[in-house]
């Protein structure tokens, strides 16, 4: 009977698909199976991640020494723009929801798939089209975009580089995000297994839910912003042109009304993953389930109220600066709730320091640094000094890369056996974790110092006094890139040659661990009824798992 340990008997979703043929490229590209769609996203997103990382390495090579090193100023401007566009729109924003949300949301709910499987496939195709448009834009007349990923007016309207196409690509990618969010909202409302009320859902589901609402409500605002810039470039309407009465600050409002909530699209799913990994590797139920769940919703909502802290030096009114600064400090509170509850979960737990857990520890350290430096930026007076310096660059890399990026790896190391039915080399994974945290701090910590010493961001050249720290940061980028390649190989080789994985190698108790690794097409070989709390580890007495 169903003990979660069925491998030989049933077929996995690799062997059985939703298309006529179960193998071959068309069985993937036309599959409506959420697991295959999640894996397709994994492949595409990984590819773009490495392109974006490579651009970062090239930028750091240029910045290794003052003056021109390997490229001219125009190329440098293009590189930092593309680095941002690729990392943000093609990697981090889709990232965890598209890969792990797609793969694991139905599993964690005890469902067979998402609410709208065909819409899900459409989301992926739209993502693919958007990414192709980004690549195409590199070869358009005028050369690749050089506005920075934030494409502020007036420069984005005036520059002769190719802007409309990459912006349109971002518009298309936004659609993919919206449709995914829509799908997840309806899935969570309608497809939970019997017995799973809202407060028995895993916390990854709660965070996916909160994220989905942000995707749906915030993304259209950047959609209209993008359209207005394209229209401005094409027709000169004047909406953001001061000479015609327009207001460039209004552009910044519209832009950040999306782009600030967007950072919560990036971090909330990651925090959800942390709330999965910590209980499993502490072998203890999560401390404060309801506060953590509610804090996800709180972050999502309050996150809409703080956008103009990106605009303290823009020329907006003093009244609004004070209000936004205050609201910014409030949004830090629910994140604090999560961190306290995670730590409390580990207290008196039975810690199993496997790679997912180590990566989560890195996350707590790196994200905390990022978050605390955010408080510096949230204070108007301090921000005026460090706005548009490397301090900001370091802050957001700590939260986005050190936060979400770290958890992308943690999630891979956690759910890899479930997705691929194989196990990776644990020692190698631990070494990767160690090098990662060292590389990260060598690469990014110097930037905090350079920032408050006055090194501006997006500058191609700099004063000689920054040369030493710039060099140090560049060395960090080499170690980091090597580590990223090592992580990739660690996992990629395991897909090919790894040992067969147990259905539940970590002793998790959420529903994905109660089916085979990898799961069958319809996720479970039995009807699921839920009568446990999500992190009730007493279930391990009845469940099959790999004991130490």
């Amino acid at each position: 009977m169903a003990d979660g340990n069925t491998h030989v008997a049933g077929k996995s979703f690799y062997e059985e698909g939703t298309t006529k043929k179960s193998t071959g490229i068309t069985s993937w590209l036309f599959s409506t199976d959420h697991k295959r769609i999640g894996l397709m996203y994994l492949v595409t997103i990984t590819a773009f991640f490495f392109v974006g990382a490579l651009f970062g390495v090239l930028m750091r090579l240029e910045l290794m020494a003052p003056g021109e090193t390997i490229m001219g100023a125009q190329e440098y401007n293009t590189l930092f723009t593309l680095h941002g566009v690729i990392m943000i729109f093609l990697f981090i924003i889709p990232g965890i929801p598209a890969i792990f949300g797609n793969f694991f949301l139905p599993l964690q709910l005890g469902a067979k798939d998402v609410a709208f499987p065909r819409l899900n496939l459409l989301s992926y195709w739209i993502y693919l089209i958007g990414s192709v448009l980004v690549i195409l834009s590199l070869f358009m007349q005028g050369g690749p975009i050089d506005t920075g990923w934030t494409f502020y007016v007036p420069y984005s309207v005036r520059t002769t580089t190719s802007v409309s196409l990459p912006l349109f690509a971002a518009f298309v990618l936004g659609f993919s995000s919206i449709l995914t969010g829509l799908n997840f909202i309806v899935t969570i409302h309608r497809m939970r297994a019997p017995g799973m009320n809202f407060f028995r859902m895993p916390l990854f589901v709660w965070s996916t839910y909160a994220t989905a609402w942000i995707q749906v409500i915030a993304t259209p605002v950047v959609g209209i912003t993008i359209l207005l810039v394209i229209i401005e470039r094409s027709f000169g309407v004047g909406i953001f042109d001061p000479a015609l009465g327009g207001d460039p600050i209004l552009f910044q409002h519209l832009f950040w009304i999306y782009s600030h909530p967007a950072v919560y699209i990036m971090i909330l799913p990651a925090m959800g993953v942390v709330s999965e990994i910590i209980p499993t590797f502490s072998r203890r139920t999560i401390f404060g389930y309801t506060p953590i769940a509610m804090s996800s919703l709180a972050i999502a909502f309050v996150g809409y109220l703080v956008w103009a802290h990106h605009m303290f030096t823009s020329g907006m009114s003093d009244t609004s600066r004070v209000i936004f600064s205050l609201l910014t400090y409030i949004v830090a509170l629910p994140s604090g709730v999560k961190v306290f509850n995670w730590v409390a979960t580990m207290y008196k737990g039975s810690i199993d320091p496997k790679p997912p857990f180590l990566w989560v520890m890195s996350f707590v350290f790196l994200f905390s640094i990022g978050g605390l430096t955010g408080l510096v930026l949230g204070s108007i007076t301090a921000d005026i000094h460090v706005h548009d310096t490397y301090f900001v660059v370091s802050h957001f890399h700590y939260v986005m890369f050190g936060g979400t990026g770290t958890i992308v790896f943690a999630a891979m190391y956690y759910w890899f056996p479930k997705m691929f039915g194989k196990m990776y080399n644990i020692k190698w994974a631990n070494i990767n974790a160690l090098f990662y945290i060292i590389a990260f701090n060598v690469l990014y910590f110097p930037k905090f110092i350079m920032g408050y010493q006055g090194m501006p961001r997006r500058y191609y050249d700099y004063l000689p006094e920054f040369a030493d720290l710039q060099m140090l940061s560049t060395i960090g980028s080499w170690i980091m890139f090597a580590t990223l390649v090592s992580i990739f190989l660690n996992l990629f080789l395991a897909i090919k040659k790894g040992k067969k994985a147990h259905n539940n190698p970590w002793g998790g108790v959420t529903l994905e661990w109660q089916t085979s690794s990898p799961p069958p097409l319809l996720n479970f070989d039995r009807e699921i009824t839920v009568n446990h709390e999500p992190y009730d580890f007493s279930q391990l007495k009845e469940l099959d798992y790999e004991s130490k």
Partner: protein
Amino acid sequence: MEHGNTEHKTHSHGYGIYVLVWLALIALTSITVTVAGVDFGKLALPIALFIAAVKSALVINYFMHIKFEDPIFKVFLLLSGVTLLVIFILTFFDVFYR
């Protein structure tokens, strides 16, 4: 697994109520056009927006049927509306006080 309802809500309206709503909408339209001809000064915009809001409420509640749907639809609508409102208010803290 929670099975979707394959049946629509048991009660279904006749044509009549919708025609009544439509008549109300036409009436409100003529009111708003007439009112625009009167000089209400600073109140003109709020009045116009209020009438538009009443028309919208009729369309949303009856034509879009939300009055008769599960409360969750109204919750969702409220959420989105409140978010939009908040965005307006916060933006105007800048524009108004410059």
